[in-house]
């Protein structure tokens, strides 16, 4: 890395980023899950110092629900020139029924549908600026029983920890003494580890000072919170708190509860990280699962599927196309070979049969010629014999003639007595 001498100016990049982000504004979606009466709405109001739910916009807790609903409220808040579009997602009815099997399903469906919307928007050919409505954080409220996690708590967190950043909170912590709270926290963390639930982990910062702080905070997990819509005067100061006959439980007092820790973590230091983890981890998991289902078509061959995952679907199709072309070529050459071989065979057969016929014909011809020769020979022989015999006959005839002539002569001469 080259450290520059003299002024270049890109050290100003962070300011440029700052400027642009302020202009764009920010958005954040926070989901709260827990049984009724755990103070979810109150906590939201305390966190954001506003009456999200008021007379005009009543909170879900004031309405009786028969089934689990997922409701969202969108508000715009401004502070220090920074604009934030805050979406609070509430889940009234969660865990309130007698049979709570699958009460997490509407929650999962909601989270998935937001991811789906984002995926579709991201996959369009014509893309526009996409609003990010994905759930960035899920605060899960644990009832302050003091004992341990309920089966529903475990079930919910197990099903959602790989879909959203889950931050478990001990609700209405002012019903626990510090010692009870400590034990409760230890027990919860133990059970979380036992069930391999991955809750949101505040990442370590490189800065030494801050990292010590982070570690201290990690030891306080899960955070025990108290919320209040009421402002009370304590020792001349106006604070949010809950007034009891025996005193005031102050929301923002670090010795009373972990509210400030939560607020600082959630809003002041780790809001961006919650969004980043949602985008880089949870959303990417959703996306790759969704796309794998489409393009791999439940591939059985795992090595092939693995390859497919590292390629874009377009490249995947290209690859398949190439493979197919090669397969076709191979098939073509094979077919060609078989074809050629068969043709050769047939031609050979034809040739052989031709040769055979030729041979036979030759033989017959030869045979015939031999017979001819024989015949000629016989004929010649006969001719010879015949001419010989005829010659002989002629001689004999001549002799006979001569003999008869001589006899005649002798007769005439009187030689005959």
């Amino acid at each position, binding site marked *: *890395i*080259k*450290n*520059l001498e003299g*002024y*270049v*100016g*890109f*050290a*100003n*990049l*962070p300011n*440029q*980023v*700052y*400027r642009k*982000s302020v*202009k764009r504004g920010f958005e954040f979606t926070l989901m709260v899950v827990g049984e009724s009466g755990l103070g979810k709405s109150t906590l939201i109001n305390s966190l954001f*110092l*506003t009456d999200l739910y008021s007379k005009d916009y009543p909170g879900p807790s004031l309405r009786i629900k028969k*089934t689990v609903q997922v409701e969202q*409220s*969108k508000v*715009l*808040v401004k*502070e*220090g020139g*920074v604009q934030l579009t*805050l979406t609070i997602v509430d889940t009234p009815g969660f865990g309130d029924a007698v049979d709570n099997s*699958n009460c997490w399903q*509407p929650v999962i*469906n909601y989270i998935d549908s937001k991811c789906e919307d984002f*995926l*579709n928007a991201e*996959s*369009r*050919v*014509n893309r526009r600026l996409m609003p990010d409505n994905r759930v960035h954080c899920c605060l899960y409220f644990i009832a302050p029983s003091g004992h341990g996690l309920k089966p529903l708590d475990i079930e919910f967190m197990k099903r959602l920890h790989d879909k959203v950043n889950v931050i478990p909170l001990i609700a209405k912590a002012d019903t626990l003494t510090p010692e009870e709270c400590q034990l409760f926290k230890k027990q919860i963390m133990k059970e979380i580890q036992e069930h391999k639930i991955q809750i949101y982990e505040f990442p370590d910062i490189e800065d030494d000072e801050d990292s010590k702080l982070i570690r201290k905070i990690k030891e306080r997990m899960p955070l025990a919170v108290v919320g209040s819509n009421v402002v009370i005067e304590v020792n001349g100061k106006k604070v949010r708190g809950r007034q009891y006959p025996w005193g005031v439980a102050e929301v923002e007092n670090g010795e009373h509860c972990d509210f400030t820790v939560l607020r600082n973590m959630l*809003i*002041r230091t780790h*809001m*961006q990280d919650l969004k980043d983890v949602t985008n880089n981890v949870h959303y*990417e998991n959703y996306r790759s699962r969704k*796309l794998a289902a489409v*393009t791999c078509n439940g591939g059985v061959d795992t090595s092939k599927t693995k390859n497919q995952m*590292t390629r*874009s679907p*377009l490249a995947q*199709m290209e690859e398949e*196309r190439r493979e197919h072309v090669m397969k076709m070529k191979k098939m073509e050459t094979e077919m060609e070979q078989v*074809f050629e071989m068969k043709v050769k065979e047939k031609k050979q057969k*034809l040739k052989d049969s031709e040769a055979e016929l030729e041979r036979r*014909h030759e033989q017959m011809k030869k045979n*015939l010629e031999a017979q001819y020769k024989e*015949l000629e020979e*016989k*004929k010649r022989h*006969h001719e010879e*014999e015949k001419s010989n015999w005829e010659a002989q006959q002629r001689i004999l005839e001549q002799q006979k003639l001569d*003999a008869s002539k001589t006899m005649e002569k002798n007769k005439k001469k009187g030689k005959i007595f």
Partner: protein
Amino acid sequence: MKYLHQLKGEGARAVPLAGHVGFDSMPDQLVNKSVNHGFCFNILCVGETGLGKSTLMDTLFNTKFEGEPTQHNQPGVQLKSNTYELQESNVRLKLTVVNTVGFGDQINKEDSYKSIVEFIDTQFEAYLQEELKIKRTLHSYHDTRIHACLYFIAPTGHSLKSLDLVTMKKLDSKVNIIPIIAKSDAISKSELTKFKIKITSELVSNGVQIYQFPTDDETVAEINSTMNGHLPFAVVGSTEEVKIGNKMVKARQYPWGTVQVENENHCDFVKLREMLIRVNMEDLREQTHTRHYELYRRCKLEEMGFKDTDPDCKPFSLQETYEAKRNEFMGDLQKKEEEMRQMFVQRVKEKEAELKEAEKELHEKFDRLKKLHQDEKKKLEDKKKSLDDELNGFKQKKTAAELLQSQAQQAGGSTTLKRDKERKN
């Protein structure tokens, strides 16, 4: 189990805050994350050999980048890129400088712009491929897309060369073009004003869209709009230092005076540095991503046959499109396979017919020969028969004659005998 979207009001309603919540730290959180992650910036320098591209980069970034000065005998235009890791205070920057080697050196420059366009497209393609992967790592991806293209104009003082216009026209929809007049210490001030006006009017009349410094953010709107009026920047680069007064400044020393690089009266170098690096670097990156890359992506996807469904009704469904594309594609392949098979079946049929024909001919030939042979045989038989008849006839004749002779001989024989006896006596 249903879920409802109950938007309170038409969108988000504004609510007042009763105190300091603390989300005004969001920009800082974002900035911290960016700083930790590091930044990256890619500059493409397009210009003829010898216009001082490398020197200007060295001067801008206060560092000596590698490389030998190039010769003029390059056969085509090549792009050479080098990546450097720089740091200024706590900000790390991964800077990639891409140089066009051999630009403008050929006799026929018709294809000069092609390798540049190809290079830019390749970087877009790489990003697109990464973005489309099933398992992707976009946040750690090293972005190689070109964020700014410095187009070096030769300081002729007259007008743009046709090569410049052609090239810039091809590049203006793909990259942020910042035209600069190179080696501007060769032009006098009055000539420079005229030159700038001429260049700007030529760009406008040819519809070349150069990068405009953004004026939508009030914080920088004023300075950006002023600077937009100074385009194209006339720059001078130098890494050599000359002592002026009691300071060492970057300058070029001539017998008639010293051109100071960072003196705004001498050249626009400082303006370029301000605009390119200090004020608008992030905007250049953003424009590249949201405008130029999106255009490339849209064209590429449309080329491959993807399209959005009607925006009025159902939203575009990724799976459906992929599914449809895939089925179409598979069907296509299967059809091709089937066609090839059919072709072979056809060939086999044809060949079989051919061979059958040949076989038939062969048999016909031999049948003919056989017939001929039969005829010959018959002839032979006839001849044989006639010979046999003759032989028989002859035999009969012979036998008859011999019989006669033997009879005659018997009679004649006794006469002869008598005669012979008499002779003896």
